[in-house]
């Protein structure tokens, strides 16, 4: 594993990012998927600990730039996984592959939309074009889809940045604060309904027709996840960090 230089600087980081993305692009064009995945993994591992511990000698607001780039590289990693999943000629005949690729597509798009605020260039354009084509494929093959959408009520919420009543502080959800994304951490959450919608907030909660089981009384049963704990920066968090909304 690469080690961070003791004289870490944002200039070095930017240069390393540029080199990594250039190499990634070449590997993807040559369909060297495993090499491309390893490259992303190695990049993230190089910076993860220093980022998590805020141990780098940079300004506190530069952690925001670091976060955006790390999420971008993770998005590229997701895309490699997606390419691997869909590389076989008949992947769309395999239900597990169809569902896994859908989830990976959602993860990849969400991370790249987040990072596109400051990451631009040939690589991100290529991925967005490719994701759009894959979404078209899903639309034509499986339709626009139906989704479950849970309503969640909670007794209150705490700001993930300052840990006070979410209503009381000035941190805005989705905003970046010294490398952290502001979210509302629910207190005693409970589901109060489950809706069937065609415009979900989280498209991962898709109902696949092959998972529906018709009962003798004509009712339908399905087993499926109704809430995903995904967050664009989840790979940078400790497993002990509470999930947020």
């Amino acid at each position, binding site marked *: 594993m690469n080690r961070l230089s003791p004289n870490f600087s944002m200039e070095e980081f930017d240069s390393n990012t540029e080199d990594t993305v250039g190499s990634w692009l070449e590997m993807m064009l040559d369909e060297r998927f495993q090499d491309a995945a390893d490259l992303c993994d190695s990049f993230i591992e190089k910076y993860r600990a220093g980022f998590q511990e805020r141990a780098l000698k940079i300004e506190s607001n530069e952690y925001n730039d670091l976060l955006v780039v790390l999420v971008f590289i993770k998005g590229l990693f997701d895309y490699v996984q997606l390419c691997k999943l869909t590389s076989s000629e008949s992947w769309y005949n395999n239900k597990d592959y169809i569902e896994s690729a859908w989830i990976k597509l959602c993860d990849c*798009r969400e991370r790249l*939309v987040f990072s596109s605020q400051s990451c631009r260039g040939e690589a991100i354009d290529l991925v967005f074009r490719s994701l*759009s084509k894959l*979404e*078209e494929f899903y*639309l034509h093959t499986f339709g*626009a889809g139906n989704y479950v*959408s*849970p*309503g*969640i*009520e*909670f*007794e*209150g*919420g705490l700001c993930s940045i300052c840990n006070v*009543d*979410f*209503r*009381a502080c*000035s*941190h*805005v*959800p989705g905003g970046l604060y010294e490398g952290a994304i502001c979210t*509302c951490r*629910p207190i005693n959450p409970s589901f*109060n309904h489950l*809706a069937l*919608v*065609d*415009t*979900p*907030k*989280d*498209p991962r*909660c898709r109902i696949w027709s092959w998972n529906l089981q018709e009962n003798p009384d004509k009712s339908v049963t399905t087993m499926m996840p109704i*809430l995903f704990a995904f967050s664009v920066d989840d790979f940078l968090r400790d497993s002990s960090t509470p999930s947020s*909304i």
Partner: protein
Amino acid sequence: MSIQADAIECGLLGKLGVDSDAVQKYQVLCLPQAVEYLREGSDLVDSTESITLSKLLKQENIACANSYDLGLDTKLTELRGLDIYVGCIWIRDHAAVPAVVAILSRFLGDKIQEWRKGSKKSQVHAELKITDEKISAEIEFNGDTEAFLKVIKGLKDE
């Protein structure tokens, strides 16, 4: 604000235990939906979007209060559909309208970026109240986000 509008507003919020003097210093209130039908001790439920909107208004130096600022004990709700619930936006000072419209437009504009091709547009659910000496209006809106933006932009021009 006109005396009549002030009396109505303070009467409604008074039922929830809000001190009428506490309201006076604010240009805009971001409150739970259907707040006027509730009584003290009722289950008040803020949407996370309503709270976010109040924070964005404060960032732009609008004197804005949410349930916390008025001392209301509320629950929070998060709906996982694409629809946007901004609660009750109560504009008490017409001078704040342009800023409210600009911030709402930006907030909703960010929200309605279509996630993928073929997806339907999101809808917005809002109660808009304007009570000052120039205008007194109430709009309950449940519909297309772009139509809502047109409605509120119209308010700015009045």
